[in-house]
C-alpha cells in the first residue's frame, strides 16, 4: 500500500516522488449512449511517471482529454493541487501548467520548428498588442527572454539543426520530437504524452525514452503517458493504471500490474 500513503518517498534510482498533485475521483464520461470512462479514480503524484495502458478503445485517450479539459466528465471531480477544478476550457487548463502532445501529430505545419516551439511559451507571454506592433519595450524583451528558454529546450532535445525548417518538411520521428519540444517549452507542471512512440522504429523509441526519462529527471516534471509498447511502459513508469472497456482493472507498480490476473485477461483475451 506504499502508493496510497500521502508522504513523499524516494525511488530506487534516487528520484523523489512527492505528494498527490492531481486526483481523479469517480470520473464517468459518456458520449450519448456510449460510456467511454466508467467510474475511474486514480491519482498522479508529483515527479512520477504515470502510465495509462489498455487495449484499443479502452478509453485511455479519453482519459487524457478529460485531464486536459477537452472533455468534461458527466460525473466525477478532478482535484488539482488540493483544489477541486471547476469546469474549464482547454486553454485555461493549459494555463494552469498542463501541457500535452497528441496521438496524431498536431503541429502547426505552416510554421518553422522554432516558431512551433515558441508557441509553447505563449502562456508565459502577455505583452499588449500595441507593444507587439511597435516591437518595443515589453514585447521585445519577452520575445528575447522566451527565445532563450526555447533554445534550451531545442538544445535538450537535440533539434538545433532544424530550428528554422518549416515543420511540414520534417520526417515523422522528428515531428514527434518537435511536438515534445513545444510541450516542454511551456515549463509544464504535468506533461501528458499520448502515445509518444507510436509508429517509431527501435532507435527512435530509444531516443524518445531517453528524452522522457531526462525530462523527468532534470526538470522534475510529472509525466502521464499512454503507450502501447509494454516493454517501454514497464521500463519507464513508476506506476501504471490499466484500463479496459472504460473501467480501471489495475493500478500499481509495473511488476504488480504485470502479475495482475485481470490485466493478463484483458490483454490475452477471455470471453466477456
Amino acid at each position, binding site marked *: 500500500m506504499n502508493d496510497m500513503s500521502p508522504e513523499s518517498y524516494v525511488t530506487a534510482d534516487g528520484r523523489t516522488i512527492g505528494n498527490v498533485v492531481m486526483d481523479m475521483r469517480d470520473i464517468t464520461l459518456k458520449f450519448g449512449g456510449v460510456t467511454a470512462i466508467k467510474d475511474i479514480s486514480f491519482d498522479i503524484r508529483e515527479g512520477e511517471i504515470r502510465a495509462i495502458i489498455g487495449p484499443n478503445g479502452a478509453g485511455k485517450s479519453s482519459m487524457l482529454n478529460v485531464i486536459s479539459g477537452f472533455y468534461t466528465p458527466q460525473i466525477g471531480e478532478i482535484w488539482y493541487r488540493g483544489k477541486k477544478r471547476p469546469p474549464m476550457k482547454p*486553454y485555461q487548463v*493549459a494555463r494552469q501548467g498542463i*501541457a500535452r502532445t*497528441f496521438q496524431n501529430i498536431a503541429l502547426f505545419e505552416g510554421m518553422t520548428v522554432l516558431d512551433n516551439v*515558441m*508557441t509553447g511559451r*505563449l*502562456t508565459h507571454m502577455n505583452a499588449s498588442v500595441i507593444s507587439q506592433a511597435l516591437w518595443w519595450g515589453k514585447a521585445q524583451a519577452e520575445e528575447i527572454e522566451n527565445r532563450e528558454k526555447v*533554445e534550451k529546450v531545442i538544445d535538450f532535445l537535440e533539434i538545433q539543426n532544424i530550428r528554422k525548417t518549416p515543420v511540414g518538411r520534417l520526417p515523422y520521428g522528428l515531428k514527434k520530437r518537435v511536438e515534445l519540444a513545444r510541450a516542454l517549452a511551456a515549463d509544464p507542471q504535468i506533461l501528458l504524452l499520448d502515445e509518444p512512440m507510436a509508429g517509431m522504429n527501435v532507435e527512435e523509441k530509444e531516443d524518445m525514452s531517453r528524452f522522457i526519462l531526462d525530462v523527468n529527471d532534470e526538470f522534475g516534471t510529472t509525466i502521464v503517458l499512454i503507450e502501447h509498447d509494454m516493454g517501454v511502459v514497464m521500463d519507464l513508469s513508476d506506476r501504471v493504471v490499466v484500463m479496459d472497456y472504460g473501467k480501471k482493472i489495475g493500478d500499481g507498480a509495473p511488476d504488480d500490474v504485470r502479475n495482475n490476473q485481470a490485466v493478463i485477461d484483458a490483454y490475452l483475451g477471455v470471453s466477456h
Partner: protein
Amino acid sequence: MLYRIAGQFKTSYQKDQALFPVQQDAWLLGIILLFAWLILPLTASEFVFQTLLIPVLIYALAATGLNILTGYAGQLSLGTGAFMGVGAYACYKMVTIFPDLNLFIAVLLSGTFSAMVGVAFGLPSLRIKGFYLAIATLAAQFFLIWLFEKWAWLYNYNASGAIQVPNLDVFGIAVAGPLATSMAQYYFILIVVTLITVLVINLTRGNQGRIWKATRDMDIAAELIGINLLKSKLMAFAVSSYIVGVAGAMFVFLWRGAAEPNLFDIELSFRVLFIAIIGGLGSILGNWLGAILIVALPVILNTVPGVVGLEIKSATVEHINVMIIGALIIFFLIVEPHGLARLWALIREKLLIWPFPH
C-alpha cells in the same frame, strides 16, 4: 552571389530576430523605399499617379488587412468591400460633423468603426468555419451595402445618394477634394500605408502572429496549448477590419473622390481577395506583389499593344484582363497556393546558396 550570407554572424537572439537577418534584404528594401518615397513621385505623370501608384498603395493596404484575417488567422472573408465602405462612410461622417478634424486623424479613426463592425460579424467564427464562415461574411457584405443605400443619414440626405469628398487640407496642403494634387494625395497615402505596414510586420512576426498562425493551422491543438480561440479570432477580425476600413477611407477620400454604395460591392471584395491569393496568403510582401500585378495588368494591356502597333478595342482589353486574372487565380490555387510571395521566397532561397545546389 549578391545574396551570400557568409560572414554575417548573429551573436545575440535580438540580432537573430531582427527584421532583416540578411543584410541584402535591408538593402533591397532601402532601394524600394527610395523609389517609393522619392524617385517615383517626382517623376510620375498624373496618369501614372492615378492609374498605378495610388491604387497599388490602397489595394495593397486593403489586401494586407484581409491577409491578416484569411492568410494569418485562417478565417475566410468575403466582406472586405463592405468593410472598406464602413471606413469610407465613417470618415465622411466625421469630416462633415467635425470640419476642422485633421484628415490623418479622421482616416485613422475611421478604421475603428469598421473594426467594431468586423468584430460583430466575426462573432460567428467561433462556431462556423471555412466556407460557412465565408457565407456569414457574405451576409455582412449584402447587409452593409443595403444599409449604405437605405440609411440616408450616412450620406447626409444627399439627393444623389452618393458621398462627395469636400476640399480638405492637412497642414495647409490640399489633400482631398477637387483642389488636391496627385502628389499630395500620394504622399498622404504613403505615410499611412508605411506606418500600418510596419506595425503589421511587427505584429505578425511576434507572439500575436504565432497565435494567429496556430489558430489557422490547427485550432484544436492551438486551444490545448493555451490559446483562447475566440480572442484570437476576434482580434484578427478587429485588426483586419481596422486596416481594411482605413484603406476604404483613403480609397474614397484620396483616390475616387466620390462614392456610391455599389462601389463597395462584392466585386471589390473579390478584387482584394484575388490580390491576397495571387500575392500570397500569409505574407505581407505578397499583398504588394499581388496589388502591383492586378493594378498594372489592365494598364499594360491597354498601352503595350498600341506601342507595338496592334489595335485592340478597349472592350477586348477588358475581356483579356478578366481572362488573364481568372487563369492566374486557377494557376496559383493549383500550383502555388502561397502565391507570388512564395515564388520570390524560393528564388531567394536559391540565390542564397547560388552557385551551389545545396
